[in-house]
């Protein structure tokens, strides 16, 4: 089963490698991992997407909690939550028809064109992972030159929050 896990940890050098090292040492899989400092610069917030049986995910949560630098761990999947991921995609855009078509498609998906050249568009799209997948599929015959995805960030709905 897919699980999305939020981790609040000390913003120390090497903190990320402790998490990554734990996953490789114990053979857990990481589908995506995002990390950045929070508004309190002494803390980092990580969102990690993994897959595993309930038993494995329980171990993952315990092992994460056991890391000395980890302050809090939450299985976001246990509660209502929001997930967002950002996609940057550079597409070949040559000829007026083709450029119009691509622009319409971007509008439908509420993607923004953030950079333009004679021959390319670069689009930005934020949403749940499946929406990003759908956009890439819809681009269909267009030539994708490059894609970058941020990995999933997640937060719980409602007043509940993950903090110190």
């Amino acid at each position, binding site marked *: 089963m897919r699980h999305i896990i939020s981790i609040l940890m000390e913003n120390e050098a090497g903190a990320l490698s402790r998490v990554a090292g734990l996953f490789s040492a114990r053979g857990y899989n990481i589908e995506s991992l995002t990390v950045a400092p929070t508004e309190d610069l002494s803390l980092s917030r990580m969102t990690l997407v993994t897959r595993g049986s309930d038993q494995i995910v329980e171990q993952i949560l315990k092992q994460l909690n056991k890391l*000395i630098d*980890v302050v809090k761990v939450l299985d976001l999947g246990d509660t209502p939550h929001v997930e967002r991921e950002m996609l940057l995609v550079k597409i070949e855009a040559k000829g007026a028809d083709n450029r119009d078509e691509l622009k319409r498609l971007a509008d439908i998906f509420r993607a923004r064109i953030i950079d333009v050249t004679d021959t390319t568009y670069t689009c930005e799209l934020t949403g749940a992972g499946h929406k990003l997948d759908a956009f890439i599929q819809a681009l269909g015959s267009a030539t994708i030159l490059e894609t970058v995805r941020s990995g999933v960030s997640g937060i719980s709905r409602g007043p509940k929050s993950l903090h110190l």
Partner: protein
Amino acid sequence: MELTGAEIVARFLADEDVEYLFGYPGGAVLHIYDALYQQDKVKHILTRHEQAATHAADGYARSTGRPGVVLVTSGPGATNAVTGIATAYMDSIPMVVITGQVPSPMIGNDAFQEVDTVGITRPCSKHNFLVRDIAELAETLKKAFYIATTGRPGPVVVDIPKDITAMKCNYVYPKQISMRSYNPVSKGHTGQMKRAATMMLKAKRPILYTGGGVVLDNASKSLIALAKQLNIPVTNTSMGLGGYPATDRQCLGMLGMHGTYEANMAISHCDVMIAVGARFDDRVTGNIEKFAPKAKIIHIDIDPASISKNVSVDIPIVGGVNQVLTALLKLFKADEREQDGEAIGKWWEQIEKWRSKDCLKYKQTKTGAIKPQFVLDTLYKVTKGNAFVTSDVGQHQMWAAQFYKFDKPRRWINSGGLGTMGFGLPAAMGVQLAHPKAQVACIAGDGGVQMNIQELSTCLQYQLPIKLICLNNGYLGMVRQWQEFFYEGRYSQVHVEAQPDFVKLAESYGHVGIQVTNSADVESALIEAFKQKDRFVFLNFITDPEENVYPMVPAGAGLEEMLLL
């Protein structure tokens, strides 16, 4: 007070009441060694190899309960220490290892004797630090001791770049420390404990399966009281030996791959298992599918990650073993409910039947060839069960665990989790330093004893009167046994063909060497050795070369499928 980083290290260790520092100098720690030279509170023990320094610190920690402390240089000093760090990590031994590092500006430049110590030790230490700022040095050292000794203990590495040890900074001993990201749980959940109490009271065939956690948390007394209160049989893991007195009627001895028949049978037939400070290691469980198939399991452990890792448990209790056992005992004392006395009586009858099989029996030879089991039996007799016994890894280790009856905790010191050959001798040094008057025996094989043999020199320098009992079968015996059983006797690279003359070797190091080849001389040799109270004695027992360790649960088999002699 304004001190250099090196002086802060030395002062801090003194303020932390560190008695012994086990180490080996080098370029990156020159400043620290200079600061140590100028003080006399912390005694430095110069081993002959950094691995030995870590094992000696480990032996000190296991036998006292206090953290072992190590100092080594950068690069090869740190990598040599890794085996000792990993050994301590697997067995949850509190240890602080200070490593030198190249100067901060040179980190990452492949400088002379640079390795990524924090990277290398990350997966085999409880935590590690690279000190980046002199202002954080004292606090980081304090954190290291705090983390190493609390919760589930373990080794912590502090990597200090050389330039930091030369910088100056104001020093105040940080008496207390708190960390927002680290709050080890210590108290068991009351509701869970009540559920456990009910389950234990209702049990018809209960068993206590106890591990190193009992020893680490000094919980022997409460374990004994609890076992007595409910008349429950007790089995120990190798790490747990001595946590419950081996000579007590309720003790079934060690369980697992080379455990006793009665312990493994009782585990396989129990209806309620209370696992205490044990972690369901594969050497203990055998084939996990066949492990305690009829049992409801209560698991008491300080580390939540140990619970339901290998075996899913019915009632987990996260907390310090001693606190939980004490609380449980209180519950039982106040509880009016009665146990099913008849069922418990029957259970004991069954256990006595299993016990009467006398699974550890062995036959003396007619030729006078020495049975290794007999050496350990005799050692137990000669030392009246009071010795500290360290062990190396192999057949001799299993015989020591089976035949020396430990009635007290912290007396049996062996590398359980990592199974590190070369552990026994240096560990004995730490034990003897911590207990200068005590009898310390190191049991080793002819293979492993050569993995840290250079420490004979350290033993002379510090006048450590250890009695090294080498059970010399001429083989890497444990591996040979597996090749005999499971590879049709194809002995691949297990014959230690060229051996030194161990007696002369001991003598050349300035010690006493005794060679024993006949069974009739075993007892007198041991008595003679222990008479030499101030001398290190190397006893080389030439033993029956193809003796095997029984009982044995073959890999992949269930505990009930033991091979008996």
